[in-house]
């Protein structure tokens, strides 16, 4: 059961995975305009500079609106699709599901370009709304996966029991199903939010004058002077992502415990 070589490899792998990310706070607090060793001392100057950047906050606000809207829409669509496929038999269900999940196996560029060309052809102006449409496309598969897992762990006889005791299909959904899949819903909202917040390609190509945060960051990369402030921003973003994900994981485990199952692996 114990293989020290393998364990060392695993630790080394984790170091490799986290190394670049760990550099973020290192250089965010580094008192130098250049991202290089040796370190020049501690400063919070970059955080202050970042904090004072109004354009940054504007694009942050845009991204929050986009991510919030996307997560709600994607989770709703994912819930409907998951409920349909787990509970009912209908023709072409596999086909519909495949179409909905397709963005997972397509390079994002293709999704973005296709949608962009349609929008250009119709003459729809690019804006936050078009970004949201693209983001919902790529977040819905995640929502479907999470909600499907949530619905599948529901005992079917719970619904029948509720009906047997006098409830209608609608009140059964409200009183029994919804509370029991709520952890899945929360998880799906958080995951979609995180995916949308970090997403670049669609935000870049389907965005108009109001930029998303990731596009703003991308623009800043051209200016070497701005890089340390971006390190600061990156540090904060990473912390936020990790926090959101930890909360999502907590809810996922709580959901499993509530319905009496056992936790085995990750989300997907």
């Amino acid at each position, binding site marked *: 059961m114990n*293989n020290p070589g*393998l364990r060392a*490899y*695993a630790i080394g*792998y*984790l170091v*490799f*995975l*986290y190394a670049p*990310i760990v*550099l*973020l706070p290192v250089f965010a607090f580094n008192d130098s305009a250049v*991202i*290089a*060793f040796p370190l020049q001392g501690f400063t919070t100057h970059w955080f202050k500079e970042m904090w004072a950047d109004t354009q940054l906050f504007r694009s942050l606000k845009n991204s929050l609106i986009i991510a919030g809207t996307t997560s709600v829409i994607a989770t709703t*669509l994912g819930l*409907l*699709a998951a409920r*349909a496929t787990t*509970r*009912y*038999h*209908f*023709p072409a269900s596999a086909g*519909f599901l495949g*179409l*909905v999940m*397709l*963005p997972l196996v*397509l*390079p*994002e*560029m*293709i*999704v973005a*370009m*296709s*949608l962009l*060309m349609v929008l250009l*052809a119709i003459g729809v102006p690019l804006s936050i709304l078009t970004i949201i*449409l693209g983001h919902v*496309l790529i977040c*819905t598969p995640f929502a479907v996966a999470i909600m499907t897992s949530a619905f599948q762990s529901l005992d079917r006889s719970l619904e029948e029991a509720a009906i047997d005791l006098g409830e209608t299909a609608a009140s059964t959904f409200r009183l029994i199903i919804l509370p029991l899949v709520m952890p899945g819903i929360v998880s799906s909202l958080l995951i979609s939010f*995180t995916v949308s917040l*970090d997403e*670049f390609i669609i935000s870049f*190509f389907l965005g108009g004058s109001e930029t998303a945060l*990731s596009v703003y*960051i*991308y623009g800043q*990369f051209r200016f070497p002077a701005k890089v340390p402030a971006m390190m600061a921003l*990156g540090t904060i*973003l*990473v912390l936020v*992502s*990790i926090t959101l994900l930890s909360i999502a994981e907590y809810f996922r485990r709580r959901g499993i415990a509530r319905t009496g199952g056992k936790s*085995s*692996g*990750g989300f*997907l």
Partner: protein
Amino acid sequence: MAKALDAEARKGLALISPTALFSIILLAAPMGLVVMYSFLTDGNNRIEWIFTLQNYVEVWTGPVYRAIMFRSLVVSLTVTLITVLIAYPIAYYVSFHVPAARKSMWLFLITIPFWTSYLIRVFLWKVILGYNGVINSGLFSLGIIDEPLQAINYNVGALVMTLAHAYAPFAILPIFVALEKIDRSLLEAGQDLGESRLVTFWRVTLPLSMTGVLAAVLIVFIPTIGDYVTPDLIGGGKLPMIANMMEVRILKQGDRAIGSAVAVSAMLIVALISICFLLLNRRFLRGQK
């Protein structure tokens, strides 16, 4: 099977319709448009409705296109190979050497980097591998080198490194899932019959995990070949891949027809290679029972 659409089928279809309609309108229809465009002709910043196969001829024979396609394939296949190879041992470790209660913690730790901004991670690699970047400045200040290393930036190797890092967690999960499904008593039976641990691995564990390996291959290969950010930032504009080419053609030059042909060709290549991998998968599955 009494009527064509019984009550259950109607309810199911009604439930899935918003999601399905969304995908049809925003994904299926646009992709259909792209395919259509690929057979039309580019005019002055607009599409001329003249049917032609010229776009495909150019994409498949033009030297620039071929170079970029080739580079994209080389990069993505190399990345896939490396990523899956280094992912297997850690998936094995978590599946076989980590107690069950801790497994999801390990998986969580492994996937966290994936959920942070891809853009920032790529930029960090640029910073790490750059001329005055972290590696060079670190080695320099430690006195190990006198001149900055040229070999680690602005080349295909740098692309591969960045992408392999970014997609590493993608590869681990499917392999892990496949390894978890292996009945442990099969392995114990083998050892009970006198096999060494290495032989057991080679003859039992590895073949049984092949479906996971092939899934990992697909999960890494497909997004990698269409990546935009890494060739853009790490390559400095000198190492475009398919996605960058598409941007140039469609947006910067307004040639939607040929851009669409590039997109469709790329998807065809991806589909072909994926089918090859899936057929390989079938061979493995059939060989087991």
